[in-house]
C-alpha cells in the first residue's frame, strides 16, 4: 500500500534510495544534500539496506569509487551538489564514457565564488555536457519518483548512461511537502534485478576498462556513447508509462505544460519555479489572457522535437533561466530552446530572463510582469537582450 508522508526533498530521495537498496553508495556530504547521506547512513546502521556505504574523503573519490563499483556489476548511487559536483567533474565524464548506470542526486546550489549555499542551476548547467542524462524535479514527490525511474533509465540496454536527478537545494531539499511513497515490494518489482554486464568481478572473462584509444577508433566509441544518451529520450517516456501504471502518477511525458493549447505567449522554465508560475498562470487565464506554461523535466538529452511541437504555434515565449550565461548570449535553457526553434519555418520570438540566482526570490508579481511583457511584445517587438528578474539594477 502506498503511504502519504510529510517529507522534505532530501528525506524523499533518501526514502527512494532505501527502496532501491543499491549495492554500493559512495558519497561525501555537502550542503544541501548532506541530509540525504545522513539519512541513508542511518538506514545502513539500522540494517534496513544491504548497501555497502563507502564514506569517501572527497567528491572526486566518491564518483571514482562509484565508477569502480559500477564497473564491478551492481547498483550504485551517490548524492552531491555545487562544489562537489564540479570537484568530481572529470570523473563524471569518465563515468559516462565508461557507460556505467550510476544514479547521482544533485541538489542544485550556486557555484562559488563568492560562496553561496543557496539555490540556482549553475552547478548542473556547468557540466550539462558531461554525458549524464539530466532530469529536473519540481518538488519532493517528483524527486522521489524520478530517482526510482532513473535506475531503470540508466540500466536500459539501449541507454547504459549515468543519470543525474536534479532537485533544488533548500527550496526542495529542506522544505516539507506531502509525498506519496510507494510500497517497498512495488518499487522492488518495478526495478527488477540488476544484470551485470562486463563486470570487473567476472574473473573468467577479464575485461580491460580504459585503454588508451587512438584516433582510429575514438570517434566511433564516442558516437556510440551519443546514441546511448539520445535513447534516454524514448526510454524515459516508456519507463514513465510503466511507472504510471503502478502509481497512477503520469510520467509519460518528459515535460509538463499548462494552457498551451490556446496560448499566444508562454513562459518556459524548470524545477520549482513552475509551481509559483502555475498559480499566476491560472489566475491570469481566468481573466481571459491567452498564456501558457511549459516545464521541461528532461534537459539532457534535450527533448527538442516535443518542445518545438509545443512552442512553434506561439507568438512569443519567455525562457526563464536559473543560471548566469557567463558571456553567452542567452542562458543554457534559452540557448536550447532557440536552437531547437531555429530551423522551424514560423516560430515565436524568444526573450530570455535570468531569475532566482543564489535563491533570489521570484515572486508571483514577477511572473505577472513577464506575462504582461510578453503580451505587450505582440504589439511591439521588444529589444533582443538579456533581462533579469528581481535584480537591483
Amino acid at each position, binding site marked *: 500500500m502506498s503511504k502519504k508522508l510529510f517529507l522534505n526533498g532530501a528525506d524523499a530521495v533518501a526514502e527512494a534510495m532505501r527502496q532501491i537498496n543499491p549495492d554500493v553508495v559512495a558519497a561525501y556530504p555537502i550542503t544541501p544534500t548532506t541530509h540525504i547521506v545522513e539519512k541513508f547512513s542511518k538506514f545502513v546502521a539500522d540494517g534496513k539496506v544491504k548497501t555497502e556505504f563507502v564514506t569517501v574523503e572527497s567528491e572526486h573519490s566518491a564518483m571514482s569509487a562509484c565508477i569502480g563499483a559500477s564497473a564491478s556489476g551492481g547498483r550504485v548511487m551517490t548524492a552531491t551538489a555545487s562544489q562537489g559536483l564540479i570537484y568530481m567533474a572529470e570523473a563524471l565524464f569518465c563515468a559516462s564514457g565508461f557507460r556505467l548506470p550510476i544514479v547521482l542526486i544533485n541538489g542544485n546550489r550556486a557555484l562559488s565564488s563568492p560562496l553561496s549555499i543557496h539555490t540556482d542551476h549553475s552547478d548542473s548547467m556547468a557540466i550539462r555536457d558531461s554525458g549524464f542524462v539530466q532530469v529536473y524535479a519540481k518538488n519532493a514527490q517528483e524527486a522521489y519518483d524520478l530517482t526510482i525511474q532513473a535506475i531503470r533509465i540508466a540500466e536500459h540496454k539501449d541507454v547504459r548512461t549515468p543519470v543525474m536527478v536534479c532537485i533544488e537545494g533548500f527550496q526542495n531539499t529542506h522544505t516539507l511537502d506531502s509525498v506519496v511513497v510507494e510500497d517497498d515490494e512495488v518499487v522492488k518489482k518495478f526495478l527488477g534485478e540488476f544484470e551485470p554486464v562486463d563486470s570487473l568481478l567476472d574473473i573468467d572473462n577479464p*575485461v580491460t576498462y580504459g585503454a588508451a584509444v587512438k584516433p582510429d577508433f575514438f570517434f566511433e566509441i564516442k558516437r556510440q556513447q551519443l546514441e546511448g544518451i539520445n535513447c534516454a529520450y524514448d526510454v524515459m517516456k516508456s519507463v514513465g508509462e510503466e511507472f504510471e501504471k503502478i502509481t497512477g502518477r503520469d510520467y509519460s511525458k518528459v515535460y509538463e505544460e499548462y494552457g498551451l493549447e490556446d496560448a499566444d505567449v508562454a513562459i518556459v522554465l524548470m524545477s520549482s519555479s513552475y509551481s509559483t508560475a502555475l498559480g499566476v498562470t491560472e489566475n491570469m487565464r481566468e481573466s481571459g489572457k491567452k498564456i501558457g506554461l511549459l516545464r521541461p523535466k528532461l534537459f539532457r538529452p534535450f527533448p527538442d522535437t516535443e518542445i518545438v511541437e509545443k512552442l512553434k504555434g506561439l507568438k512569443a515565449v519567455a525562457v526563464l533561466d536559473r543560471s548566469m550565461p557567463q558571456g553567452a548570449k542567452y542562458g543554457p535553457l534559452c540557448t536550447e530552446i532557440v536552437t531547437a526553434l531555429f530551423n522551424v519555418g514560423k516560430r515565436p520570438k524568444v526573450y530570455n530572463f535570468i531569475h532566482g540566482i543564489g535563491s533570489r526570490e521570484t515572486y508571483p508579481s514577477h511572473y505577472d510582469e513577464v506575462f504582461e511583457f510578453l503580451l505587450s511584445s505582440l504589439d511591439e517587438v521588444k529589444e533582443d537582450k538579456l533581462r533579469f528578474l528581481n535584480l537591483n539594477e
Partner: protein
Amino acid sequence: MTEDKKTNNKPYDASYQSMDDIPQAKGKKDPFVTKSWREIDRAGIIKDGGNSILYKTGNWTNKKLNFDPEKCINCNLCWPVCPDNCILVDKDGNMKGVDLEHCKDCGFCVEACPTKCLFFTDEKNKEI
C-alpha cells in the same frame, strides 16, 4: 625441437621464433580492424584479455638475444627480471628458451645470468 631434448630436466631451446610458435597467440584475432560505430566495443572495453601477444615488440632493436642451453644451469635467475615475459619455462620450471617475437633486448637477463648462456648478437651475428 624433439621430445628427447625434454628429458632429465635439461634446458633446451624451444624459443619462439615467430608468432606461430606462441600458444597464447593461437586462436586470437587481430583486433586492429576498422569497425562501424554500431559494432565497436562499448566504452572501448577490451574483452579479449592478453591480445597484446599479437603485437610484435621483438623488432624494436637490431640486437638479438641468444640462448645456449648447453651453458644453462636452470638457476631461474633470468625469469623474475624479464619485463616482457620472454623467458620461457616449462611446467617443471626448467628453462626452455626465449620469446624472440617480443624480446626488447633490454639485457636484464643477460646481466642476471651467472653462466652467460644468454647473450646478444648484432645483425652480422657477431656477439656483442
